[in-house]
């Protein structure tokens, strides 16, 4: 038996009994950031391959989502800061060791680029609303001609953005559930998958839906594989990692993790998408919405559960 109490009364509401310094805005941002990264990645790849005429939703309509998602995500991030008036301090330094510094700089470039991307499609998206100023028209034309260049920049940026949502958590060795390198690829895959789901949800032509259902199915399989790897890796780990895994398997997050994330968020939509590819008539909105909800809950589970895990000494 070992029992530890704080004699002096370490009366810190956010630390005892468990540390909870990051709240819902962080989870929400991790979801929105991943979603935006996914859509931007697909839009850029389709553009680079010169298929933008074949997949209009990906490059045009779904691209309306990233600027909104990134703006909301950034607002959520700033809302969670306790010293928000000093946010500009992020941009006085580049700290290669700090994932949050990476994230801040990547967001500083990606967010405006996502707006410019949408603006380059302005006349196609809003054909009835003409731009009032001539220079705006010139600017739109300029962006239109440079769309491929933007795409070349957005491919690495969106990958960093997607990986960063996971690395942000995995860089903390004090929280054993987060402290595994697979979180980076796992969050990237999940982000790409939610991006593909959004495209499926918004797409109108069958060719686009078919392609992204296939991509999404592949991503779901990869994500399940990564989750299995994460669980196996943790089970092969030290006591603190075992404790962390027990929260997800048998502990208080079991239903949320296996019920909502793994089964309803990955396996069920995976089966539905496989059936759809086989030719069965499945309303595409169902798997897409399940994936989006599953992705959102996944972030909440990881952020909440991670903050419970700690070193005991």
């Amino acid at each position: 038996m070992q029992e530890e109490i704080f004699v002096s009364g370490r009366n810190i509401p956010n630390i005892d009994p468990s540390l909870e310094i990051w709240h819902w805005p962080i989870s929400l941002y991790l979801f929105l950031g991943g979603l935006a990264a996914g859509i931007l990645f697909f839009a850029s790849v389709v553009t680079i391959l010169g298929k933008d005429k074949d997949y209009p939703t990906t490059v045009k309509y779904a691209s309306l989502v990233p600027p909104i998602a990134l703006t909301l995500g950034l607002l959520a991030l700033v809302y969670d800061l306790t010293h928000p008036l000093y946010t500009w301090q992020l941009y006085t330094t580049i700290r290669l060791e700090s994932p949050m510094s990476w994230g801040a700089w990547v967001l500083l470039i990606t967010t405006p680029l996502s707006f410019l991307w949408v603006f380059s499609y302005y006349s196609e998206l809003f054909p009835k609303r003409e731009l009032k100023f001539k220079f705006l028209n010139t600017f739109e034309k300029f962006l239109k001609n440079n769309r491929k260049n933007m795409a070349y920049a957005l491919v690495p940026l969106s990958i960093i953005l997607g990986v960063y949502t996971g690395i942000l958590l995995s860089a903390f060795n004090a929280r054993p559930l987060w402290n595994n390198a697979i979180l980076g690829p796992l969050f990237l895959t999940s982000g790409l998958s939610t991006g593909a789901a959004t495209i499926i949800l918004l797409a109108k032509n069958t060719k686009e839906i078919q392609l992204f259902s296939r991509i999404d199915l592949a991503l779901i399989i990869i994500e399940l594989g990564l989750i299995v790897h994460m669980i196996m890796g943790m089970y092969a780990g030290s006591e603190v990692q075992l404790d962390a895994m027990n929260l997800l398997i048998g502990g208080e997050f079991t239903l949320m993790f296996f019920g909502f994330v793994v089964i309803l968020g990955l396996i069920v939509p995976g089966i539905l998408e496989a059936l759809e590819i086989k030719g069965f008539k499945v309303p595409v909105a169902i798997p897409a919405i399940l994936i989006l909800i599953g992705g959102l809950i996944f972030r909440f589970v990881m952020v909440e559960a991670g903050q419970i895990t700690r070193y005991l000494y």
Partner: protein
Amino acid sequence: MRYAMVIDTLKCVGCSDCVVACQTENDVPIGYCRDWITETVSGAYPSIELELKSERCNHCENAPCVRCCPTGASHIVEGGIVLVTANECIGCGACIESCPYDARYQHPDGYVDKCTFCHHRLEKGQLPACVAVCPTKCMYFGDLDNPNSEVSRLLKNRKWKTLAPEAGTKPHVYYLI
């Protein structure tokens, strides 16, 4: 120069004087503290062991809080002391998440605050407030790079441990056992 604190768990009675001294010296807001006392009971009756410890920031050599700070507000100064510059801190909480010792807290004014080893007192040649007031004299403070300092000699002659060494942070608060 490598500042370190050595605390004799056999002499500590858990009176919390160090906690109060710190709160007074550093004007710590009510309800918060930079150091605290833990009482650990282990074993089963009748062979029970009790250990009293005064805990605080370990001023780690491999400080995860400094590594993950996005603005550089958390930094290490001469002597290995980890400090936070309040007007560079954005209050993102990354350092709090990264600390295996939960040594940091968000000050009601927004920035993140923690033990400084009483850096302002050291500059004047004084001991940290907690060490200075300890009624059982169970706390020692000094330079580990100097082999003749009191802390170096204690660590040479006594059995000691650090907290959560498995976290890989190389902490610099030592507990004599």
